């Protein structure tokens, strides 16, 4: 199946490593990060071909270093950015354009943030929800902050640990109406260490580390008999080492772990993307209150 349109080419200023993007249904715009150039791009909703972004956030005042994910909070008129390179959540005005400073930055040791690969807003509860890839299972999961948090603040809640099973995850989206968090989890194996730091082999790395043959946490949550990935759904009130309330997972799904997840409540649709596949699932009960009360 060929796409109906493609935004591509030098003029678009897109680069590799778009680990999160969002569609702003209120303002009919698309928001995408540019990891390789420290930028955030905003396109027309109907953009097609070698089309320039309508707005671009980039420059020394922006504090952007390596953003991998971005999302819109159209209720409060803000763009949320997860910067993996600086371990920061940066919040900009929705109409920010050019070399502008963020309105707020959440970063620092108290936040526990390291490699942020997913970000979303819970507009109903005034929360910012991110996927944080930390060095241990307890530091590697969903971190929830208050929307107006600023500076070196501890998260309001963390969903992480063995039973959560979030060992390599990327995109996150929130169904604010029902208070549900959807996470694209690529697998429950804890990933191995990369062999290089900057342009030199990591000094404390052995060939066994490179081949991923030693010291890697491959333990599985009790509710899974394999290490494959899934789309996991948690409640926004969940906290700690808790399993998802529901998962889309298994041989019938055609997905062996997802890097991306999206949904549309009106259509009852869940979308998962990963590797060289995308799949859509019709599960309208996810968008009813009754289902989650069971």
């Amino acid at each position, binding site marked *: 199946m060929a796409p109906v349109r493609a935004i591509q080419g030098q003029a678009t200023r897109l680069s590799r490593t778009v680990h999160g993007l969002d569609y702003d249904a209120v303002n009919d715009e*698309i928001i995408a990060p540019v990891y390789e150039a420290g930028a955030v791009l905003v396109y027309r909703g109907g953009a097609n071909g070698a089309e320039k972004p309508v707005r671009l956030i980039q420059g020394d005042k922006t504090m952007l270093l390596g953003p991998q994910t971005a999302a819109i909070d159209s209720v409060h008129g803000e763009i949320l950015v997860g910067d993996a390179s600086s371990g920061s959540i940066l919040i900009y005005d929705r109409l920010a354009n050019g070399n502008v400073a963020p309105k707020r930055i959440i970063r620092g040791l108290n936040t526990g943030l390291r490699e942020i690969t997913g970000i979303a807003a819970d507009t109903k509860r005034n929360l910012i929800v991110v996927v944080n*890839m930390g060095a241990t299972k307890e530091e590697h999961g969903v971190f929830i902050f208050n929307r107006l948090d600023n500076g070196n603040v501890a998260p309001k809640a963390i969903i992480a640990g063995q039973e959560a099973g979030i060992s390599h995850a990327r*995109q996150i989206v929130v169904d604010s109406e029902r208070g549900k968090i959807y996470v694209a989890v690529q697998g429950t194996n804890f990933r191995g260490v990369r062999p290089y730091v900057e342009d030199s082999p990591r000094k404390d790395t052995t060939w066994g580390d490179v081949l991923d043959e030693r010291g890697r946490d491959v333990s599985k949550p009790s509710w899974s008999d394999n290490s494959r990935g899934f789309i996991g759904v948690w409640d926004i009130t969940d906290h700690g080492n808790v399993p998802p309330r529901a998962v889309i997972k298994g041989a019938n799904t055609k997905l062996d772990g997802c890097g991306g997840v999206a949904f549309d409540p009106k259509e009852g649709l869940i979308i998962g993307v990963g590797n060289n596949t995308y799949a859509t699932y019709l599960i309208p009960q996810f968008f009813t209150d009754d289902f989650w009360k069971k």
Partner: protein
Amino acid sequence: MKRKTILWAAGLISMVLVATALSAWQTPGTGTSASPKPSRANPPAQAKSSQPAGGPRKPTVFDVAPVTNVADPYPTWNGVTVDTDNNRVIFSDLNRHGYFIYDRLAHSEGGEVTPWLKHVGGREAGLGFVSGIQADPEKKVVYIAENDGFGIRTFSYDDDGPVKARNLVATPHQVWGIALSRARKEMLVGVEELHALLVYKQDAEKLDPPLRVIRGVNSGIADPHGVYMDSVNNEIVVANHGNWSLYHPNTDHDPIPAVIPISPGHFDEPSIRIYPVMASGDAKPIRTIQGSKTGLDWPMQIDVDLPHNEIAVANFGGDSISIFRRTDKGDVAPIRELKGAKTGIIGPVGVAIDTKNDEMIVANYGDHTAVVFPRTASGDVAPKRIIRNAPLNAETCGFTNASSATYDSKRKQVLVAN
């Protein structure tokens, strides 16, 4: 060759947003999944029940068939090299994670898939989102770069099927282009996120460090893709996309910076930059081809025709092959351009010059083909041979490493980032 009316996406290049209409799921049975299709009137039931009484909470499992499942079952080229000593042409396959070796003259007469000689892939091979590919005709060895993990893997020409690599040298994450200099016994790689070029011994293995690194603001290297090591003129050539930001290690094993470094990220114009072969550190290029006249638009693999002093560029965004003089610099137009509906060049990622047989081989990402031309072909001309990795008219879905998505509720389209 019929050109698609809708352009699609890029490779592991991963910079394209593709949109797909959801009309398929709305009409039962039009998806590609073979499983029974749920409908809104008949939503799927969970496969397993949850919340056992008195026990720990367990998730409700939905092992359900998708209503739409889009994936390309055929290979997608992401690089090409030609071995005129052994009459082989070799392509990396980004989509199905491997590489294919063909006889140099292999081609399709009609719409059939072109028979190959060897195909290496599968879990044993350890190949994922592969990009650059090179060969050593004397050793009969293939070198293939991994873009999304790390490392250069080496295989023998005799290898076939799901086989282990003969050698693996670790590299940084995001290597795209590789080049060999048999004369220098060196291997050159370009690393996207580091904005750097690294030179290794050709037979480097495991954690052998690079011999030289070119990296820094003065180097002008920005999101490098195609690379070439010229051991006649003692130069290194690199094609840049122009995206640049200060790199900071960002894995879960690396501490966050104490303060966010001031990083005036920027979009430079795409360029071809040339350095002395022994350059290292933050070396300035000795020549740069850059500017509006060049027509460069996401330049991918490059090759240098040393006998004729020309640089060939696979110009993805322009659906073209651009030829520059090797000694060009500044804002110059290509001396030849191969482009147009007759050429069958659609989203080219690879180009290889065969000076022995006076040919040029172009690997397409945007179509399931590679197209072969006379070396000096120019304008809108038909290829002399076509190598097909899928039957005629098999569409490409435009992505090979989808990593995020969103739903355009206004247009009922899924946006997929590649």
